[in-house]
């Protein structure tokens, strides 16, 4: 089996993991999948309910074309084979938020199957270099591309929402969500680590948003994921047993749940316990998976063809009458699709080749900031500005967002327009490099995303002082206030300048440009320098001369020592290495 051959052996060296996903994607359509009622989220409870949505007797489903088209877009994006005839089926189970007692889905005859999806691995740069796992990267200038086979995509609808009222010991049902369109994407177990899993899901999410299949919601994602995790001994082939972790709501949960599950199963197997087939859930507070039910307890869903819906027919350019209004033409949908995230990245690398490297792009991708980057770029008209923006994004912004962990919050607080304005003003020297950090922090904390840059600058008086005369005055004032530093300048001009600079910055909150102040200050201070030039000379003191005369240690093998491991940091250790390398060579 191909998957086994390529399987990544876990660090313990004895097992490998296989992970498959079942992903429910909430479709971004105006109305529900089988009824005309609105599918808008967060409305007054039970305000979006037609007879069908509450399973009134006599009501019938009617397929929403928009849901089908969204499904076809997903199938094209995931390179699936699209089945031109598929069927809807009823999946029976009793639950209060499923008013009809069944869900309409596509169990036996899905509309799309046998797909393949490529995704870039989102691993931190240093890890990528250090890890032996990913040595198979053939080109350091490209992404690590992995692939996952897609088993099937099916159309189905969502259930209602149960609201458990603990105080009055009752359950309330909101049917607004019932009937909203979903696609379920089922993958093959081609994922082998939580990192791959997360990378896959993030790329999938990007595709789904790009293709307008799901909405980029305020929450992280419109995806709900069930992960099937199974661990196997290195020398065995998978036996189909697996543990299903249900209902993971965020990428982080997916990652943590998989990691926990792998560890748990690894421990069991290491102690020769069997892995039980079971369904588990993930406790987001305790960060562990919890047993829900055994597989044997699973109810029989008694699937049956949905008799109220005719078979689902799809057409392509080869079919007759393909232009009939009520037909859905696969080829027509293909032609209308935007670029995939994959091609889009290629395009960026080409368009911004002057300053954007694969590493940059990878970092933007990892931080989920590609779209933000694109939106900023649209507003900046030259590569120079673009380059500055990229640098600021990947250094200052990343650092104020806790090394990028909260960078999505920044993206929401600071609109691309505001960010582009900041960059433009930075370039025009209206904002200094020093106040930039403060300004970004202020903007990041700000809740009102419509505020203009001007309002920030006005409120906090952050305009750079560019007027020469004024600068001159400020410099003189500082020099007056700090006579000690003038003395210091005579012996150590660098330190003195730094000190003076820091004083002036403190006083004016970074409103002063580095280079300008150094320039002005140096001009002011130079007269002093001329007077006392070379007071601090390069001639060594006698002590220094003595030390330097000693020279480097003699190079000779140490008796009985074959290898030396040097532990340390900084330049010193490098020197040491140079030395010992030769020591070893002598041997």
């Amino acid at each position, binding site marked *: 089996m191909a998957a086994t051959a390529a399987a990544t052996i876990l660090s313990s060296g004895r097992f490998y993991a296989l992970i498959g996903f079942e992903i429910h994607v909430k479709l971004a359509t105006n109305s529900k999948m089988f009824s005309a009622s609105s599918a808008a989220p967060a409305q007054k409870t039970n305000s979006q309910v037609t*007879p069908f949505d*509450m*399973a*009134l*007797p*006599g*009501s*019938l*489903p*009617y*397929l929403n074309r928009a849901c089908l088209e969204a499904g076809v877009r997903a199938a094209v994006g995931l390179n699936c084979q699209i089945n031109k005839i598929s069927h809807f089926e*009823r999946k*029976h189970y*009793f*639950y*209060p938020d499923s*008013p*009809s*007692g*069944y869900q309409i889905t596509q169990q036996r005859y899905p509309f799309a199957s046998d797909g393949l999806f490529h995704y870039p691995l989102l691993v931190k740069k240093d890890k990528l270099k250090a890890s032996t796992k990913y040595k198979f990267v053939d080109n350091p200038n490209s992404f690590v591309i992995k692939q996952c086979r897609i088993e099937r995509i099916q159309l189905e609808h969502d259930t209602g929402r149960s609201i458990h009222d603990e105080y009055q010991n009752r359950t309330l*049902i909101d049917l607004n969500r019932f009937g909203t369109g979903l696609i379920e994407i089922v993958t093959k177990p081609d994922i082998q680590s939580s990192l791959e899993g997360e990378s896959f899901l993030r790329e999938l999410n990007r595709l789904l948003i790009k293709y307008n299949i799901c909405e980029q919601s305020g929450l992280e994602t419109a995806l709900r994921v069930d992960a099937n995790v199974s661990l196997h001994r290195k020398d065995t082939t998978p036996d189909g047993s697996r543990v299903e972790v249900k209902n993971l709501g965020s990428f982080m949960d997916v990652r943590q749940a998989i990691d926990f599950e792998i560890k748990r199963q690894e421990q069991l197997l290491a102690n020769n316990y069997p892995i039980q087939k079971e369904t588990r859930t993930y406790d987001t507070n305790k960060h562990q998976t919890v047993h829900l039910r055994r597989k044997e307890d699973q109810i*029989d869903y*008694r*699937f*049956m063809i949905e*008799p*109220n*819906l*005719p078979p689902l027919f799809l057409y392509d350019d080869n079919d007759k009458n393909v232009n009939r209004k*009520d037909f859905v033409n696969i080829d027509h949908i293909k032609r209308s699709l935007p670029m995939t995230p994959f091609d889009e990245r290629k395009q960026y690398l080409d368009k911004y080749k002057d300053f954007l490297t694969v590493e940059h792009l990878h970092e933007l991708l990892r931080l989920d900031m590609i779209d933000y980057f694109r939106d900023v770029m649209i507003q900046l008209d030259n590569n120079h500005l673009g380059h500055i923006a990229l640098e600021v994004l990947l250094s200052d912004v990343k650092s104020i967002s806790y090394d990028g962990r909260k960078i999505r919050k920044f993206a929401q607080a600071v609109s691309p327009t505001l960010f582009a304005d900041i960059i433009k003003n930075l370039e025009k020297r209206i904002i200094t490099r020093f106040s930039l950090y403060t300004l970004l922090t202020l903007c990041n904390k700000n809740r009102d995303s419509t505020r203009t840059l001007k309002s920030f600058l006005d409120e906090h008086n952050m305009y750079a002082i560019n007027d020469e005369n004024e600068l001159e005055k400020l410099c003189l004032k500082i020099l007056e206030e700090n006579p000690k530093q003038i003395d210091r300048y005579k012996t150590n001009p660098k330190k003195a300048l730094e000190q003076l600079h820091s004083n002036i910055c403190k006083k004016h909150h970074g409103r002063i440009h580095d280079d300008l102040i150094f320039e002005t200050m140096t001009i002011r201070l130079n007269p002093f320098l001329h007077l006392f030039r070379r007071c601090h000379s390069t001639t060594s003191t006698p002590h220094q001369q003595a030390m330097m005369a000693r020279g480097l240690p003699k190079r000779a093998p140490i008796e009985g020592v074959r290898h030396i491991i040097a532990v340390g940091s900084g330049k010193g250790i490098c020197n040491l290495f140079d030395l010992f390398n030769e020591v070893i060579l002598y041997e």
Partner: protein
Amino acid sequence: MLSNKTCSAVRTAINALQHYKVLNTLTNDCFDKALETEQQLSNEQKNNSPLYGRPILIKDNYCLQDTYTTCASKMLANFRAPYTSTIVQRLIDSGCIIVGKTNMDEFSMGVASWGVFGPVGNPWSVKKATNIDEQNSKKLLHVAGGSSGGSAAAVAANFVSIALGSDTGGSVRNPAARCGCYGFKPSYGLLSRYGMIALVNSFDSPGIFTRSIDDLILTINAIAGPDGEDATLLSKPFEQFQTSTELLKEKKKITIGLPDEYDINKLSSEYRSCLQHLVSQLTETGEFTFKRVQLPYTPYSNAAYTILSSCEIASNMSRYDGIKYGHHTNNIDENKDTYEDILRKTRDESLSERVRGRILAGNYYLLEENYEKYFVQSQRVRRGVTNDYTKVFEEDKVDCLLAPVVSDDPITHAEYEQSDTIFTDDDIFTVGANLAGLPALSFPVQVSSKGFPIGLQLIGPFLQDQALLSIANRICSTYKFPFLDLTKQD
């Protein structure tokens, strides 16, 4: 006595319905609303719909906004539909006045129209025996057929001239034959099922009871066609049917098939001779030829029908959980009962044994390990049955089939209570048209020696509804059936 001219059509219908309460044709009425509507219509500019101002009845499984829609079940005894079904709305729009909802078998399961409101009486029993009261009714009243017995009885007795029923395995044709009126089940996909409470979605067809073929055509013209609600409807716009005056001009020679498989042992000699008599009578006219044909899958059709219908019933009935609407048990132990317990009690209390039996069977057939064995196999039989018909129509070149609907006169309610059969042998005559989705018309031919109408049915090719009605019109114009009219007796 008031003459008919001064007495409104609706008032006449109401009077008759109230007078013959013993027939138990209604589950609930909308007399006041109907009178009000009639008044309103008479004030308005009359539109030119031929159905304008006609009082009609609808089976109690059609949703009509703000009225009770019970399906003759305790489960829905208090259910008021918040919407109106497509075809009922179309009838209202063409000026029909709904006088009430008619009695039926619980959720249309059965052939006696005997739900939670008791059985419907066959109107011909009243003609035979006067002075029927509550005490002796079970012995004197005969079964009206089902499941749309209330509608059939009301039309046959001339309380109203048009009524709606629904036909899943013969539920329109069977009571029409028992009561002596026309009962038409059109091709699947011609009439919208939206708002008609489903029994078996893939067999269900709205059906129409009338006392003339013209009324049938007028009603179909008013209600047929796509509605954007029922996805199984034909997407083509409906072309209006021609009325009988137009149809009679047709002089093409008709070939009618007589399926060997429908000549079952149980068919009584009187009913068999009725069929034979009609055949020879029609042959004599020279306009008709008859041909024996074979439908070899017929012996399996009942089994396939039973399995497929049970499956869909089990599925359809799973929405009745007492949470959103319908009966909800009062017998709840707050500390102990789980959701499943409450569900079980609710359903046990409100669904009859017959209904629960079907649900149980359906769920059994749908189990993963049984699905292939029963459901898939039955679908194969269904295709076989459909192919049988296609072959007969295309290869044997018959225009339609002539067949019995029931095999003998109806039994009394008392006798019915004693028997415990759920499916009768007679189903074999009717389920075929449902399995194949074909149009079929039950029409009265003559009155039996015991004084009950004998009906026969014509089954036509898919979507040849108009041609079928045209043939029926030619057949029925060769004799005169003595329609019952209880409004004129007294």
